[in-house]
């Protein structure tokens, strides 16, 4: 690495000191040449993965210890503790959030996205500490939230701190947040592929090959660390799942539709209540998490402690067919209620685990009803619960790719890929048609931010070269043509500029005026090739984005659009006029 700051200007004042090779150790100098900024960045990504993995391991332990210390190892149904603990801890968390860690409200996904797009990758270290403490307290005390989104933000925050300390360039520093986010999420989920996809779908919001390598490296490194310490067992002990009859896809389709509707109800409830609670007087913010905790405690007190906390154990039990469908349906409804209360009150914590919980319960319930009505269906409750998880993920978080891979990674079973795809697709479509704005976009809008999203990108019509392409001119000349022959050939045609096929390859252009002037000068025996630049014109392919034509149309009169299989075949041309016409706003006639 010659200089860590050579790629672009440093972000902070401290970064203005260039990183130089003036180490007194020759040994170091010998190694320095190995690193350019790109390879150094990739190595740093591995370290981000390691540190995020370590942080997430500690975070999980903290949640578990908090839960044990506050609520005990067994579900304390009909016990006063279940009412007091979430309320009191809610009050403590509220005080911490209001006075010490104001940036840690909510899930953390949007904050990480904002760091990427607005704050040049800056996330204060205080956010990581605050998220760690408050989310561990909140989840451990029974608030209906999950540890994944906080892990994502903790990872992003650590990465941001490391990037700033290493004085990486602005471009790289921006990328640190998603890299750390992927590492944190991967460790929390023990699922690197899903984490990478989620970060691309929801945090970066764009498919970008440039960042993929670093995100994958960080995610894999963090998962390795997490497995090193906590073992390679998946979050759930997946029961035997099977998909044997294609006709059963109809049952999964129904699950997808029900899941899509439930996801919309869940999202609408949050979208409706959150701004209203935020708009209440400031002093109420101290009590909102406490009241949410009390209400959730009441749900637990009256026989449904399953809705408290992340609920992984209960998802596991649902997958093992422990609950009848009526109870599963009740738990799904109560979990939506409990999570809405926890989340809108501003308690720090994530929505991944609750979405999975609701999906698992809903899946099990729908599967139970379907099997009751159609006993020939062979899918077990566990299979429906597993597919249900992906359904809510696709419908609520609007991350269809992540939802499919998440189920596959969590279950390690590719036999159910078809039901998962069918159910998730329908959930996604139903949810999207009923509520066009995804939950994370809704939350960013409520916070007054405008951030890009993959959902928007899906809606966008991409302009391509072929959209602005004019058909190939009637007269195409060759560089070997003589000027007098060319002059005769162009005759009275209306064409003013002529593409010229160069030898052995490439394209040029010549104007009518150039040909006629040379002809009049008596240079008819010269070839066209002698008149035009040896440097061929840049050419384009029809399927390229139209943006790529913008670089050439200003400097070239025409830009040839050639066939990918045969570059000597002219498909058409683009001109500055034809390109800009496509970018012009539609006329209101």
């Amino acid at each position: 690495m010659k200089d860590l700051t050579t790629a672009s200007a440093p972000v902070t004042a401290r970064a203005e000191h260039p990183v130089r090779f003036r180490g007194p150790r020759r040994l170091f100098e010998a190694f320095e040449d190995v690193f350019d900024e790109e390879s150094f960045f990739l190595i740093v990504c591995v370290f981000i993965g390691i540190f995020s993995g370590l942080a997430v391991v500690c975070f999980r332990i903290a949640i578990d210890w908090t839960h044990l210390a506050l609520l005990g190892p067994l579900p304390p149904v009909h016990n006063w503790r279940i009412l007091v603990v979430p309320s009191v801890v809610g009050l403590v968390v509220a005080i911490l959030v209001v006075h010490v860690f104001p940036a840690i409200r909510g899930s953390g996904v949007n904050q990480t996205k904002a760091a990427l797009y607005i704050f040049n990758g800056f996330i204060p270290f205080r956010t990581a500490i605050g998220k760690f403490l408050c989310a561990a307290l909140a989840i451990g005390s029974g608030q209906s939230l999950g540890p994944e989104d906080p892990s994502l933000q903790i990872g992003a925050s650590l990465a941001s701190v490391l990037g700033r300390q290493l004085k990486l360039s602005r471009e790289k520093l921006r990328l640190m947040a998603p890299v750390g986010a992927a590492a944190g999420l991967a460790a929390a989920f023990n699922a690197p592929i899903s984490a990478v996809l989620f970060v691309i779908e929801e945090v970066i919001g764009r498919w970008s090959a440039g960042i993929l390598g670093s995100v994958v490296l960080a995610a894999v490194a963090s998962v390795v660390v997490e497995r090193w310490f906590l073992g390679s067992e998946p979050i759930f002990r997946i029961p035997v799942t099977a998909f044997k009859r294609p006709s059963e896809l109809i049952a999964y389709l129904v699950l997808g539709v029900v899941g899509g509707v439930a996801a919309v109800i869940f999202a609408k409830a949050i979208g409706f209540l959150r701004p209203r609670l935020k708009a209440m007087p400031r002093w109420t913010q101290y009590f909102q998490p406490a009241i949410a905790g009390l209400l959730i405690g009441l749900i637990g007190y009256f026989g449904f402690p399953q809705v408290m906390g992340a609920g992984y154990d209960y998802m596991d039990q649902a997958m093992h067919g422990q609950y009848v469908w009526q109870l599963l349906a009740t738990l799904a409804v109560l979990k939506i209620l409990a999570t809405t209360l926890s989340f809108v009150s501003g308690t720090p914590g994530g929505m991944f685990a609750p979405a999975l919980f609701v999906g698992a319960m809903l899946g099990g319930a729908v599967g139970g009803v379907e099997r009751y009505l159609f006993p020939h269906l062979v899918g077990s409750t566990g299979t429906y619960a597993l597919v249900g998880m992906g359904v809510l993920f696709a419908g609520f978080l609007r991350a269809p790719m992540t939802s499919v891979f998440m189920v596959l990674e969590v279950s390690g079973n590719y036999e159910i890929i078809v039901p998962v795809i069918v159910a998730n697709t329908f959930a996604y479509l139903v949810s999207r048609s009923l509520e066009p704005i995804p939950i994370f976009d809704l939350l960013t809008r409520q916070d007054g931010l405008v951030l890009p999203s993959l959902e928007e990108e899906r809606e966008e019509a991409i302009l391509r070269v072929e959209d602005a392409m004019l058909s190939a001119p009637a007269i195409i000349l060759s560089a070997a043509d003589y000027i007098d022959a060319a002059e005769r050939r162009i005759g009275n045609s209306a064409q003013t500029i002529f593409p010229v096929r160069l030898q052995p390859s490439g394209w040029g252009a010549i104007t009518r005026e150039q040909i006629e002037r040379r002809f009049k000068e008596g240079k008819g025996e010269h070839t066209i090739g002698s008149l035009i630049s040896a440097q061929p014109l840049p050419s384009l392919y029809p399927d390229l984005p139209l943006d790529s034509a913008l670089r050439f149309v200003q400097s070239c009169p025409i830009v040839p659009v050639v066939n990918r299989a045969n570059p000597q075949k002219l498909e058409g041309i683009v001109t500055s006029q034809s390109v800009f016409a496509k970018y012009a706003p539609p006329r209101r006639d």
Partner: protein
Amino acid sequence: MAKFLDKLFPRSAILVLVLLTLAAVVGFAVVGHLVTRYNANRQARGRRLYAQGLADLNSGNAGKALEELRAALTSDPSNGQYELSLGRALRDTGRLDEAESYLESLWQRTPEDGTINLALARVAARRGSINDALRYYHNAMYGVWASDADGNRRKAQTELIEFLLQKNALAEARSELVALAASLPPDPVLQLRTAELMLQTHDYGDALAEYERILRVDRGNAAALAGAGETAYRAGRYRTAQDYLQAAVSTNSTDANLADLLASTNAILQANPFARRISDAERNRRLAAAFDDAGQRLTDCAQQRGISLAMVKPAASSLSASPGLASPLASLESRWLATKPELRRLRYEEENDLPDVIMDLVFAIEQQTAQDCGEPQGVNHALLMIARDRDTADE
């Protein structure tokens, strides 16, 4: 210090990487220590909850036991013993779906484990699923056991045989028994159990052979004597049965069942006209006695059912209170009446088929009356047994 290092190695990439590596090593050490304590804590909690769960299970508090076993498993998710116990507890409380789910997830990890296969086999047996039970019992029989592999395999095979008997799958049970007997050690308890199972599968030959194997080593084994006697009796080998039963009764005179069985054997041996080494006169006497006893049984049965027969009231022959019953009984009565004059020929004619005709009728009467009026007692029971064993009787 930082400034000093900065001067010495000013923002070198190598230095940064070395520092990051050192930080990672320190992080690993700290988190490793934390995780070790955490795991130890979890395992201790798991053990405590597991012990409580087992205690509650034994004291009949299944609901609490299941909660504790689940919590134990949550505390130590990799502990197969907890998962197995939870699966078994769920199975024993009738929650077969859940039990199967837990046990199958264990099975996925160690499909060769005999204990898990046996637990799954018991779930399948409780469901009544013969195919699954067979599969898992066989897996258990050929699977890996942590201790006493032979004993556990025999236990699994014995359970399978009992399950097959319960399902009346006698052929399958017999084939399992043959395999079990071949691998038995010289242990009278095991041999006795095997012989009992053979007896239940109606494999009298092998059962008797098994009992005799025990008796060859221990001539006075009361259970083997009784078992051999009963087996021989069921096989229709009444002379053998008599010998064993007499020996059994002499060693255990208080067993009323044995005494009844011996009495029945004696009655059969005394009533059987087909017995070898008896004189013609004795044979004829037995035939005549059997004929009379059968006639009496027919009459008694008809009276019991409220049917009037010619033997009782000749004028009212074939009148019946219950046409469904009257018809076969009346038909037998007609045959009995028609055969009675023929009895005289027994004294004069040799090598004729009359004994067979008589006994055919006797057997028909005994079987029909047994069907209509219940199992007979005494001589009639003996005649019924002779009828049933006619083709197999060797004595």
